[in-house]
C-alpha cells in the first residue's frame, strides 16, 4: 500500500524533473518502513550521503522519526512539493517515509572550490593576499572572519527566474544608510532576468545611469577591500558562483584607491595616489595634446625642441590624428590578444607587438618616434589604475577627446574636458554625488581619497555615503 504510494510519489518528482538522467533514488527497508532517498546524483557527495543519512537510517528503531536519527545539522521538513524540487536542485537528498508521513531533506551538496588565493587582477605587495572564491558561503565566511560584529547583516535574495541564483546583500546595520539599502533591495527585487549572470547582470540592474561611460560600482575580489568599504557605510553585493563583490555607492576617488595604500607610509601612499590621478588625466590628455600641438599649435614647442620634433615627423605621411590612432589600435590589439592567449604565448605577443612593430613602424617612417613614446606612456598610465573598469573607460574616452582635438586644437581639448566634468557632476549613485568629496567639497573626505593621512586623522566616515554613525570610534564621554 505504502510502497505503491511511494512509487507514485517518486514518479511525480521524476516527472517534475523531466526524467533527467542524473536523478536517482534508492529505497531501503527498515523495520517494515520503506524509505526512499531521492537526489541528483551529480550534485551530491555520495560518501556524505551514506554517512549522514543511509547508515543511521539502517539502524533506526521502529518508532523513531527520521529527523531524530540523521547525522546532520541542516535538515528541513518538506511540506510542499515545490520546496522539494527546490531542495533537490540545491544539492539536498530527500528522504521520504510515507508510512510515518515524513519527508525531510538533508544537505549533502558536493562543492568543488578553489582555495582563497590572491586575485590575479588586484595584486598587492603588503597586506592580506586572500581573495574571494566562487562559493558564496566561503566568501561570507572570509568577510565575517574580518568583521566580528553583531551589526553585520546579510540578506539573501534570489534572482533569475530560471537560474534561481542566491544573491547576498551585506552591510553594517548600524552604519549603512537604510534608505540606500532599501533602494538597492528594491532594485534587486525588481530586477527581471532569467539568469543572474553575476556580476554583470546584477550591476546592470543596480545602475542608475546605464548609459554613462563611467563605472558606477566598484568590483573587487578582495575581502579586505570589502571590509573597509562596509565600515564606511557602503553595501556589498555578492552572488553565488561569482568571485566578485559589487560595492556601492562609491564615488570617483574609490577607483583610484588600492588596499596597498593603507599599508604604506603617509608620504608614499599619497604619492602613489596622486600618481594614479595624474595617470588618469595623462591618459586622456597626452594623445590629444600631441595631435593639437602637431596639427594646430606647432608654435607651442620651444625653440630647442623644434628641430627634434620636425625631424621626427617630417617623413610621416599621415595627419597626426591617424598616426596616433594607428598606434592606439596596435596597443589595444596587443592587449586584447594577450588576454585571450595562454600566458607564455601572451608574453611573446607582447614582445612581438611591442618591440618589433613599434621599432619597424618608426623605421618605415609610418609614424613618428614621438607618437610611439606618447602612446606607450599613455598605455602604461592607463594600466596603473587599480580598477580594471576605470582603466578601460579612460582608454575609450581618450578617443573622443582626440577627435575633438583634431577638430579644434586646444579649444577642442578644453571643450571636451568641460563636457567630461559636467557629465561627472551630473552623475549620482544612490544620492552620492560621483565627484564627492571634491564637489560638493568635504574636507574630511579628502583626507583619505586624494591624499592618505594616517588613520588617526580619518576619524569620521565619508559624509557623502550618508552613514548613520559619522564617528568611526565613539569618543569617551560623548553620548547622544
Amino acid at each position, binding site marked *: 500500500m505504502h510502497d505503491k504510494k511511494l512509487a507514485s510519489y517518486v514518479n511525480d518528482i521524476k516527472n517534475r524533473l523531466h526524467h533527467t538522467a542524473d536523478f536517482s533514488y534508492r529505497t531501503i527497508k527498515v523495520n517494515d518502513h520503506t524509505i526512499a532517498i531521492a537526489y541528483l546524483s551529480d550534485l551530491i557527495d555520495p560518501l556524505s550521503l551514506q554517512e549522514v543519512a543511509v547508515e543511521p537510517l539502517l539502524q533506526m528503531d521502529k518508532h523513531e522519526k527520521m529527523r531524530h536519527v540523521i547525522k546532520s545539522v541542516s535538515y528541513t521538513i518538506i511540506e510542499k512539493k515545490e520546496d522539494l524540487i527546490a531542495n533537490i536542485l540545491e544539492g539536498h537528498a530527500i528522504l521520504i517515509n510515507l508510512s510515518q508521513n515524513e519527508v525531510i531533506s538533508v544537505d549533502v551538496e558536493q562543492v568543488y572550490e578553489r582555495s582563497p588565493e590572491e586575485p590575479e587582477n588586484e595584486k598587492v605587495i603588503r597586506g592580506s593576499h586572500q581573495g574571494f572564491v566562487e562559493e558564496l558561503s566561503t566568501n561570507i565566511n572570509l568577510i565575517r572572519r574580518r568583521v566580528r560584529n553583531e551589526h553585520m547583516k546579510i540578506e539573501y535574495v534570489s534572482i533569475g527566474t530560471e537560474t534561481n541564483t542566491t544573491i547576498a546583500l551585506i552591510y553594517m546595520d548600524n552604519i549603512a544608510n537604510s534608505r540606500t539599502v532599501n533602494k538597492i533591495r528594491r532594485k534587486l527585487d525588481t530586477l527581471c532576468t532569467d539568469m543572474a549572470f553575476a556580476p554583470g547582470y546584477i550591476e546592470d540592474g543596480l545602475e542608475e545611469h546605464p548609459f554613462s561611460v563611467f563605472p558606477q560600482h566598484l568590483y573587487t575580489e578582495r575581502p579586505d577591500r570589502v571590509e573597509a568599504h562596509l565600515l564606511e557605510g557602503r553595501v556589498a553585493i555578492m552572488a553565488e558562483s561569482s568571485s566578485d563583490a559589487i560595492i556601492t555607492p562609491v564615488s570617483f576617488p574609490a577607483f583610484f584607491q588600492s588596499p596597498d595604500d593603507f599599508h604604506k607610509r603617509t608620504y608614499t601612499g599619497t604619492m602613489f595616489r596622486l600618481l594614479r590621478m595624474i595617470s588618469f588625466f595623462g591618459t586622456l590628455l597626452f594623445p590629444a595634446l600631441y595631435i593639437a600641438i602637431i596639427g594646430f599649435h606647432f608654435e*607651442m614647442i620651444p625653440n630647442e625642441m623644434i628641430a627634434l620634433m620636425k625631424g621626427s615627423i617630417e617623413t610621416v605621411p599621415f595627419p597626426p590624428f591617424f598616426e596616433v590612432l594607428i598606434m592606439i589600435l596596435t596597443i589595444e590589439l596587443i592587449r586584447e590578444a594577450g588576454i585571450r592567449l595562454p600566458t607564455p604565448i601572451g608574453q611573446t605577443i607582447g614582445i612581438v607587438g611591442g618591440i618589433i612593430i613599434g621599432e619597424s613602424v618608426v623605421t618605415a617612417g609610418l609614424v613618428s618616434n614621438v607618437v610611439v613614446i606618447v602612446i606607450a606612456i599613455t598605455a602604461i598610465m592607463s594600466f596603473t589604475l587599480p580598477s580594471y573598469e576605470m582603466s578601460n573607460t579612460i582608454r575609450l574616452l581618450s578617443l573622443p577627446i582626440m577627435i575633438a582635438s583634431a577638430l*579644434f586644437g586646444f579649444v577642442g581639448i*578644453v571643450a571636451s574636458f*568641460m*563636457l567630461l566634468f*559636467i557629465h561627472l*557632476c551630473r552623475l549620482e549613485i544612490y544620492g552620492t554625488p560621483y565627484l564627492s568629496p571634491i564637489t*560638493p567639497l568635504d574636507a574630511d573626505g579628502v583626507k583619505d581619497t586624494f591624499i592618505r593621512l594616517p588613520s588617526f586623522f580619518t576619524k569620521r566616515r565619508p559624509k557623502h555615503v550618508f552613514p548613520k554613525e559619522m564617528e568611526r570610534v565613539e569618543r569617551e564621554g560623548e553620548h547622544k
Partner: protein
Amino acid sequence: MIRNEKINSLQFIFIIVQLQVGVGILTMPYDIYNKAGGDSWLSILLAGLFIQVLLTGFHFLMKAYPNDHFFTIIQKVFGRVIGNVLILIYIMYFIVLAMSLLSRYASILSTWMMPLTPKWILISLMTVIVVYGAMDGLETIGRFLFIASFILIVYVGFSIYALKFMQITYVLPVLNEGFSNMVKGIFPSLYAMQGFEVVLFIYPFLRQKSLNAYSIATISNSIVTLLYTFIVFTTIVFLSPEEIILTPEPVLYLVKSFSFNMIERPDLLFTSIWIVFVATSFVVLLFILTEATHTLFHKQNRKWMTVFFGLLIFLLTLIPYGVYENKNLFAPVNKLIIIFSIIIPLMITGISLMKKRKITHEIH
C-alpha cells in the same frame, strides 16, 4: 515654490564669482584704462565697494522674501500682469546678455586662436556644452562651477609671474589722472563685474547653514573685486601706458610676452582655458532663463526649456554674422546692466519694503 535642489555655501560663492568673471576678464583692463588710466585699479575697488552697497540693499529684499527668487518677487510686488510683462522683459534682457557673451567669445577666439574656423562652429560648440551643463538644474551647475574655479588659480599664477617684470612707476603717483576720471572708471568696472545680481535668483536654493546669503555674497564680491584689482594692477604695471591703449585684450598680450622652457606660447593655453569662464557664465544665464519661464508657466520640463533657449540664443547670435560683422553691435548692451541689475532691483526693494511697512502699520 522652491524645489528640492540645494546648493552649499561654497557652490553659492562660486556661482556668483563665475558669472561675474566672464568674457570681461580679458578685455576689462583696456576698457577701464581708457577712462581711469593708471588709477584703474582704484576704480575697480570703488566699483566693488559700490556693489557691496547694492548687495546690502538686496539683503533687505532677500530678508523680506526668504523663500522667493527675484522673478517670483516681481510677480508678488507688481501683480500677475505687470509682473509677467516685466519677467518677459527680463527674459529678453538675459537673452541679449547671452548673445553678447557668445558673440564676444567667438570674436576673441577667432582673433586670437582660430581665425579660419567659421564662427558659427565656435558658437555651436559652446552652446552644446552649456546646454548639456544647464539641463540638470542648479546642483550640477554648482558642482561644475566649483571645479571650474580651480582655473582661477592658473590665472592668478600667470599674473603673479608677470609681476617679475613690473614697472611700479606706471601707477604712481596714485590719483594721477584726477578723481573724476577714477570715478568715470567705475562704469566700465561695473560692466566687467556684471552678474552680481544673480544672488537674487539663487539665494532661496542655499542650504541652510550658519552663513546667510548676504555674507556669502559679500565673500564672493570680495573675491571678484580683489581678483580684478589684482589683474588690472598687474596689467598696468606690466604694459606701458602706450601699449595698453593699443591692446583691446591686454591680459592676453601680457601672457603672450612670456615664454617658458617647456611652453613657448602660454597665451594659447591661456586663451583656450578662458573658454571655461565663458561657459560658466553662460550656464548660469541659461539657468536664470529657465527659472524665469518656470515662474511664468509654473510647470515646465527644464531639459527641453534649456535646449529651447540654447537653440534660440545660438540662432539669434548667428544673425549679425550672416549679413555683416559688427563688433560694436553689442556694445550698448553694457548700459542695460545699469537698468536691469541696479535700478530695477533697487526699485523693487524700495517698493517691497514700503509695502511691508504699510502692512505692518495696518496690523498695528
